[in-house]
């Protein structure tokens, strides 16, 4: 029978000196034990003050996301022994999800998460009156948003998001997955308006593409892919004045013309007004050998190959 030490993040706001700390709890347990059941056993057998949100214990209500040895998981569908094996550690450290403020122990203040969810207008806005029966939607069109419809709003992606760590106002992966779910819904009439709403500051182009949201989503929603698809929708709807969109476009132009990236031209195209102010930085970079010697970089030999690649990518979007 395995024995495990659980090192749980504690924050008790009602105590005299509410300072966060970690507390160890030891459990002897069967080989199969989920992280949630471990926490509940600790609650019931050792310390009734340990606070955690949970409900369905079958990975659908989205309540119990937390960090196990640094990695965000749903506590209810994660086996303790698996955490130990994957992290190579005998102690299982349990922390609240990241990018949030703790309320008590593992319970965090989810307010910003719900506010951002609401900010993407997460509801269908159809055009014209509804028909008598259901709207007819091709199976394939409905399946296009099936992945995003699986999002359980557990905030595991939000917890892992590096853009949010840098910019707390960033809308975040889950809300954008929902944004895509509506923008790409055939029945919705607001594709262009949504593209505008999701661009701009803290919008889709501010994603750093670290891919952690895709990796850590417990339901396979792939929020980063949704963000990328929202980028495509922005282009299709000609919502391209955004700095982020211009940056993407600059990449494309550069690839098309020379078959490779031309950093010197990308910066001014992305931000024609701001770029001159960055000239001193560019100069320093050039002195340190961090920039190509000439803005007219040589062209790659097999440019047809590159064009083919661009065409392929376009077709898959």
């Amino acid at each position: 029978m395995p024995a495990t030490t659980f090192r749980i993040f504690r924050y008790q706001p009602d105590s005299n000196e509410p300072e966060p700390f970690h507390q160890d709890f030891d459990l002897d347990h069967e080989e199969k034990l989920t992280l949630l059941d471990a926490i509940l056993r600790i609650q019931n057998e050792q310390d009734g003050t340990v606070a955690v949100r949970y409900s369905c214990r079958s990975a659908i209500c989205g309540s119990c996301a937390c960090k196990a040895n640094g990695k965000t998981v749903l506590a209810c569908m994660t086996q303790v022994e698996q955490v130990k094996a994957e992290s190579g550690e005998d102690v299982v450290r349990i922390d609240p999800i990241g990018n949030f403020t703790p309320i008590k122990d593992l319970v965090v203040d989810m307010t910003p998460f719900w506010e951002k969810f609401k900010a993407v207008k997460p509801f269908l806005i159809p055009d014209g009156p509804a028909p008598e029966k259901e709207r007819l939607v091709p199976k394939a069109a409905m399946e296009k948003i099936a992945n995003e419809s699986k999002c359980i709003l557990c905030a595991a992606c939000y917890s892992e998001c590096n853009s949010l760590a840098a910019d707390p106002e960033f809308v975040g992966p889950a809300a954008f997955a929902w944004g895509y779910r509506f923008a790409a819904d055939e029945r919705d009439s607001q594709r262009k308006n949504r593209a505008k709403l999701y661009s701009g500051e803290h919008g889709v182009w501010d994603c750093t593409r670290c891919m952690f949201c895709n990796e850590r989503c417990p339901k396979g929603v792939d929020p980063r892919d949704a963000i990328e698809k929202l980028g495509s929708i922005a282009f299709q709807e000609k919502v391209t004045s955004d700095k982020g969109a211009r940056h993407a476009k600059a990449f494309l132009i550069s690839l098309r013309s020379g078959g490779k990236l031309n950093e010197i031209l990308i910066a001014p195209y992305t931000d024609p007004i701001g770029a001159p102010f960055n000239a001193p930085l560019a100069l320093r970079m050039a002195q340190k050998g961090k920039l190509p010697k000439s803005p007219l970089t040589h062209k790659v030999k097999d440019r047809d190959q590159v064009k083919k690649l661009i065409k392929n990518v376009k077709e898959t979007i």
Partner: protein
Amino acid sequence: MREHDVIVVGAGLAGMRAAIAAHEAGVDVALVTKLHPVRSHSGAAQGGINAALGNETDDNTGNHTFDTVKGADYIGDQDAIEILCERAPHEIYQLEHWGAVFSRQEDSGKIAQRPFGGAGFPRTCYAADLTGLVILHTLYTVCVKYDIPTYEEWFVTDLVTDDDGNAVGVVAYDMIRGTIETIGAKAVVMATGGAGRVYRPSTNAHASTGDAMSLALRKGVPLKDMEFMQFHPTTLAANGVLVTEGARGEGGILLNKDGERFMTKYAPNKLELASRDVVSRAEATEIMEGRGVDGCVLLDLRHLGRERIMERLPQIRELAIAFAGTDPINEPIPIRPGAHYHMGGVHVDNWGASPHMPGLFAAGECSCVSVHGANRLGGNSLLEAVVFGARAGEASAAYVQEHGGKPNVPSNAAEETQQRIEDLLARENGPRQAEIRDELAAVMQEKVGVYRSGPVLEEAKRTVTELKERFQGVVVSDKGKTFNTDLIHTIETGYLLDLADCMVTGAIARTESRGAHSRTDFTERDDENWMKHTLAYADDGEIRLDYSEVTMTKYEPQVRTY
């Protein structure tokens, strides 16, 4: 004091649908939920929602009504079942118009429908095996659009009545801010879901503790047909997690340890798609007679093939891998019957109104209209939640518009609760809620299960009574104000004890076998003496039973075979 025209307690399918209906009717409605709305257990419903759309084959609401009446083992109210089935298509179209991502037919683009247990036609609309989640989310997005005020993580401790016995609000514990407050209202709609946590294992969430039923019972409102608890035929052995009936609807078969498709013996026509009570009893018999595999039978999906499993049952695969270590593409899933759905609940009429307390409404699993009678058909619970949620919302708004006036909310309601909780928190020595809850769940599982008998039920009753006494000295170890889950679990345990008592008491009295209530000492259905609803009242802590008539329209009771 906070006040609204209507407050809806619980924000799952029934609660949110009620709030939306009340909002559309023009009254000020607010939701109060101990969770966040999207955490509600409606989201765990997998397989689908019934409506005779006739998209796959010719079907009509009459067929749906008949199947439901028969599934209920003739103790459902037939007028209510007609309402359920006739409004069903409208509600599905409404959900679709609000954006629900239903699975579609290949060619027509219409909503696809799959076969389900106890149904004569493929009538179950679905969104892969995430139907509850998709509908829960759809309703939540409408609540967001309408900006319906929502008290999230407010745990209701009391139903508040005025001097004339009208429902005029609730007292609730705001878990985040740590305060106890009264929310006044002209009407209260209860929609807190089921009480599956009376049992273990159970498919239900930890939060499914039947709160509304107990809150109403304690105020003198009777609970109806509490002895009827449905055991779902396919739950995972490790923790009781649900495997959708859709798995059998898509063609999954049940095997015993000899590889025999045993349902051929018990339901030669409908086989695995017989009604749930029939399939659960068949499994329990196979296991009891030694033809099980480690206390389970096997659900075999392998012949469906990878592609169909991935498209139609992706969540089932994920859960079977996570909790049973079994990939259904390669091997059968060990499953067994587990407590799943409670047919009983707060006694209400066809509009969800309590005949015993003006201003009180209830909808969804915490209520009993009754449309499910002694056994609910798969795909009818989500339907009941939206149909009768909508009707309760409409009726509560109409009630408010008719009765107007400022409610006479007792000013000391919150203080009384506060005092009670302070007294509870002051207690230092005694049992904790977890041990009482564990014992309760164990005795209910063992003695009030798929098969029941008089003497064993009496034993269960004694244990429940004893646990209720021990509960009087229960100790809460968390003394804090903020997010005190120990306190909430303790209060919930009190709710569970009330409800278990009603279940056992009703089961002892009902000396027949009907639907999910199957007695080894009274093996036949007894229409002469028991074609009636049980009403359970709490008189000074003792459960008193009364009975009421079943409404029949045109369906005469028949022998029930599948």
